[in-house]
């Protein structure tokens, strides 16, 4: 009887809820759609401001211009290199650090020392200038290592990983130990294969982090040719540093609207993430939950 009554009553709350959530979701999509539409419009259409959510006077001129710029490809190459190298190093170190830290104090007596050693880095930092000076001292400026090594141990991901390792039943490791397996073997043969979901999560965080990083490239690379893509976009789009362009390029720029060109580069900078993240969503959802609130 009760259920019937509820069906007849029009569910106002539900309608309002759908409207609110749809508006919120649209607010997240509109900026990206707008920028994509701008980048695919003709320069006159973009300059006169008639473009909203669909390309007006469709044109690929801006993309044509971007892909002919050698600077764009050089930056892309740096980004790819940093993602592969940085992601790999991150993953390896996360696993190697998380395994000993996941042990009980009885199994690994130095555990609390190391835990504090890692924890303190989350509490205190020397700040930007000493950090920069140290990297300079190591002679890493202008090399790929400056983009990869300073963040080589993402402590948050280590925590996430070690929490995952702790969930793995101890009996597995003990049985392997009796069979004569050492710690290395236990890690690679038992822990790593059972933790693929967590590994995917931390790897995803690393890859996205490396792709999105721009500030380190900006200050640690003296030569703009060594900028990763996001740093390059930052100088072109946000700082509008035209001094980086040659005279021919500036002349060519006059024929393409600055606005479509900027839009095209912004869109290209976000494209890999837009393409990839919906498929990896379940991993990071799992990861964030595991990492931030547990037990």
């Amino acid at each position, binding site marked *: 009887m009760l259920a019937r009554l509820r069906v007849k009553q029009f569910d106002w*709350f*539900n309608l309002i809820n759908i409207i*609110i*959530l749809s508006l*919120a*979701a649209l607010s*997240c*999509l509109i*900026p*990206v759609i*707008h*920028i994509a539409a701008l980048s695919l419009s003709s320069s006159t259409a973009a300059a006169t*401001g008639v473009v909203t959510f669909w390309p007006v006077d469709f044109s690929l001129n801006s993309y044509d211009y971007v892909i002919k710029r050698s600077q764009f490809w050089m930056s892309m190459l740096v980004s790819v290199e940093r993602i592969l190298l940085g992601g790999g190093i991150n993953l390896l*170190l996360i696993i*190697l*650090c998380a*395994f*000993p830290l996941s*042990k009980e104090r009885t*199994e690994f*007596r*130095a555990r609390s020392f*190391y835990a504090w*050693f890692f*924890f303190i*880095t989350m*509490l*205190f930092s020397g*700040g*930007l*200038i*000493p*950090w*920069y*000076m*140290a990297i300079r*001292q190591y002679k890493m400026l202008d090399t790929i290592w400056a983009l990869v090594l*300073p963040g*080589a141990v993402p402590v948050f991901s280590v*925590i996430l990983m070690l929490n995952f390792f702790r969930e793995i039943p101890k009996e597995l490791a003990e049985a392997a130990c009796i069979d004569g397996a*050492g*710690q*290395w073997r236990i*890690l690679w043969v038992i822990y790593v294969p059972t933790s693929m979901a967590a590994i995917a999560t931390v790897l995803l965080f690393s890859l*996205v982090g490396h*792709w999105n*990083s*721009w500030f380190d490239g900006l200050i640690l690379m003296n030569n703009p040719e060594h900028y990763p893509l*996001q740093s390059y976009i*930052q100088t072109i*789009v*946000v700082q509008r540093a035209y001094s980086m362009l040659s005279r021919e390029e500036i002349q060519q720029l006059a024929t393409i609207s600055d606005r479509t060109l*900027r*839009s095209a*580069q912004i869109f290209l900078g*976000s494209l890999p993430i*837009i393409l990839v993240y919906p498929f990896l969503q379940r991993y990071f959802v799992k990861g*964030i*939950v595991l990492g931030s*609130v547990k037990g």
Partner: protein
Amino acid sequence: MLKFKREIPLHLMILPGVILLLMFHYIPMAGIVIAFQKFIPAKGLFGNQKWIGLDNFDYVFHLPNFLSVINNTVVIASYKIVLGLIVPIVFAILINEMKNKRFKSLIQTTIYLPHFLSWVVLGGILIDMLSPSDGLVNKFIKLTGGDPVFFLGDNHWFRFTLIFSETWKEFGYGTIVYLAAITGIDPNLYEAAQIDGANRWKQTLHVTLPGMRMVIVLLMVLSLGNLLNAGFDQVFNLYSPTVYESGDIIDTFVYRIGMLDAQFGVATAVGLFKSVISFVFVSVAYFCAYRFADYRIF
């Protein structure tokens, strides 16, 4: 002895990570000595620099804009912290009330998107969309009969723009944790509430929110550590000299003094000032979370 032998591989595993943390966290921590030196970069970190005591701090504290920078940082960060807590809670509840699974996951996927875009990309997009002459937002404002607003160039609007856009970027991602907490609530509680005649609103108030209480308190306490983090990436990509008055924060200030003006000692002093205060806040936050929510990070 046998035990020690078994522990050797564990030490070896953690060694590379420890070395890298030493190089890129602990050495820079020791590098705060720059704050007490008349630092000449050519002589190198820990080189033979001239010690000048607290002169750098004295200089900074007497700069006319220093107080306004601190004020901007705390105000912007506080608003971001408060909204960053409330808005995701509201949306987590709204999403949870959505019974259509397809629609629900579509909404979720969409609202996570801005979190994954860098502030370079979003900065570029916002600069375009908020432009007073041909930006999409101002076109809309003009269409509804309002006067165009220079969101990024007007000191009355700049902070609002920062706070609003940050909240917008992170609200979707913020719902994840709360949604997980809601999933953990015993469904019997809802049934019991229904039998007692509680409507949806009452159920939210008396079942859902109390069920999220632990997580809310925990995130509230932990967010305390961000009181001086007003969001360097965002401000750096959106600000300009006209809005320094309302939007210049400690981190951007340090960057300009240190990297652009090359006053390394002074910049390190400001950075150290921030690090020390942040250290207190973060430590207190973790301690409270540990005491009251039994939160253990390692």
